């Protein structure tokens, strides 16, 4: 398969501090590919600092990896020529977290919809362009008459975010990277917006990369899941088994910390306030892990393939075979 977009052992780190001596790893190298022939919804779950936003920006070509490569249709993203770049922008689109920041306050909201129509020549005439825009707005549940001609500050956060989904739909990309699309939107609207995303996948075969810290919505919306912790992949696989029988201690902690609406008031899993000293080479979770062994403090576990559709980066599973090249894509192929 020629992947649409592929992370090949790619990672990103930032230098800082005086004379650039400090190095902060934003994402440890791993491999991952989106196959256009088998579109799916993949959730990337992690907290702040987990590297999920870095992953999004690498895939969108907004930043370059220090290690490895990001490839679009087999060619490195940053070396694409003008035509290649156009194809890339046409195929990979994004929805960002903040529905306020993505609108230029100087223009009406029509601007974010008319610009791609114009730049990618999606319509032959102004009337056709307008028709396409209206159809996209209606497809996400908005009334064009209530939206077009308005300024961003006149619309609610939920409406603005839905316009962004409509914009993504206009371009009919192969992949939409949605970075926390509903975390700044009211709870009652999240279902509508996530529902529109799911519809984009089901009706148009668009792959979605749903990046979030909210495991519950990830469970409901996605087919496969990637759990990131402190810049590295902790666990990956089909969403049902990962959520129901998490293998990585961090995933277990995450699921246990989610407040549940049940009449029994408890927060299930006990938290460990461990203060072991971990060396830089050890597992990033070792200082909080209830199952940490001596080994975990000095070595970083690779990804072990514990089932055809499951991978875990934990020494508890070292009897399983390792995933070559940290190629998480191998276990994310269900549907």
């Amino acid at each position: 398969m020629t992947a649409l977009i592929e992370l090949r052992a790619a990672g990103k780190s930032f230098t800082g501090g005086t004379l650039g001596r400090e190095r902060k790893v934003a994402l440890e190298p791993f491999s991952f590919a989106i196959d256009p022939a088998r579109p799916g919804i993949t959730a990337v779950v992690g907290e702040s600092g987990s590297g999920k936003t870095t992953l999004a920006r690498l895939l969108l070509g907004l930043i370059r990896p220090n290690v490895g490569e990001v490839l679009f249709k087999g060619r490195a993203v940053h070396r694409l020529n003008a035509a290649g770049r156009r194809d890339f922008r046409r195929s990979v689109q994004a929805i960002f977290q903040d529905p306020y920041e993505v609108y230029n306050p100087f223009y009406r909201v029509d601007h974010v919809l008319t610009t791609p129509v114009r730049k990618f020549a999606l319509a032959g005439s102004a009337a056709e362009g307008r028709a396409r825009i209206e159809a996209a707005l209606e497809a996400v549940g908005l009334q064009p008459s209530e939206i077009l001609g308005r300024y961003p500050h006149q619309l609610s956060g939920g409406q603005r975010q839905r316009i962004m989904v409509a914009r993504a739909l206009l371009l009919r990309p192969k992949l939409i990277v949605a970075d926390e699309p509903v975390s700044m939107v009211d709870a009652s609207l999240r279902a509508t917006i996530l529902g529109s995303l799911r519809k984009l996948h089901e009706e148009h075969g668009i792959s979605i990369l749903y990046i979030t810290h909210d495991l519950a919505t990830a469970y409901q919306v996605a087919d496969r899941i990637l759990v990131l912790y402190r810049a590295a992949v902790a666990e990956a696989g089909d969403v049902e088994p990962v959520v129901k029988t998490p293998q990585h201690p961090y995933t277990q902690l995450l699921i246990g910390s989610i407040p549940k609406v049940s009449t029994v008031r408890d927060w299930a899993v006990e938290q460990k306030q461990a203060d072991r000293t971990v060396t830089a080479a050890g597992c990033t979770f070792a200082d909080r892990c209830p199952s940490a062994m001596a080994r975990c403090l000095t070595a970083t576990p690779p990804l072990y393939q514990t089932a055809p559709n499951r991978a875990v980066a934990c020494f508890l599973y070292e009897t399983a075979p390792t995933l070559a090249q940290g190629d998480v894509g191998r276990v994310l192929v269900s549907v």
Partner: protein
Amino acid sequence: MTTNDTVLRVEGLRVAYDHPRGVVRAVDDVSFSLRPRERFGLAGESGSGKSTMALAILRMIKPPGRIEGGEVWLEDVALSRLTPEAMRQLRLAGIAMVPQGSMNSLNPVVRLRDQIGDALADHGERLPRRALTDRVRLLLSQVGLPAEVADKYPHELSGGMKQRACIAIAICLRPKVIIADEPTSALDVVVQRQVMETLGRVQAELGAAIILVGHDMGLMAQFVDRLGIMYAGRLVEVAPIADIIAAPRHPYTRLLIESLPSLEHREGLRGIAGLAPLLRELPPGCAFHPRCPLVGARCRVDKPAVRAVAPEATVACHLA
């Protein structure tokens, strides 16, 4: 509830904003009471008026907003009758607030120890250095922070630690009521749990009542004893938490609970159709009627009054 049984009583509170196009009622005739040591949740989405409510209780509404009417009693002191100086003393000492995003409002150039010292000094407790250090250490231990944190600056602490420091400031004068406005919204789910457990422990030790303002129903379910739901500036339902979860009376409450994604079955997500109304363009009758699945003829015309339906439950709906 009898007056000796309540630590905070809000009656008919109304907050209005003067907008060029008319008067906007951000809080419309809200009444509820708080027992000592009780955990009360105030849930609602953006624009529901819950944060304005919290500010109104502390009489911190700034122009162009104003408190139009109603009264707030702390034990038996009517807050509207206090002088501005007396009210200032009451804030933090009687009712303390942990505002939204407070961890970002810590003074970046002052050490934590001095920030707590400032709070104490402002209320007449000017402690000598030794006594202050001890008091700060005690406060920090109450919120589960190590003593070294006292000498640190805010940027040296993580989000969860900063939020717990804000809780420490809020409890330093042993208030009777703590209002926490979205204390964990910027925090990750694991840290959120730590902070909420800290808040609960602190509240129990102090014997204080707590009002948790937020929109995360799951969090409310885990933390509060009684829950109030706000919509378009009104308190549309109040009930003990177990009752609200098991048998919500107001259609909005029911839809809110149903919209929570479950971790048990993959049944898809359910939302609430439509949009929350703009407070300056409220629909006639019940503010929720355009989105209500059970809307009836009366709902479009008559604004439902808040009725008591059980010893500790009220609801504002014609159909409940």
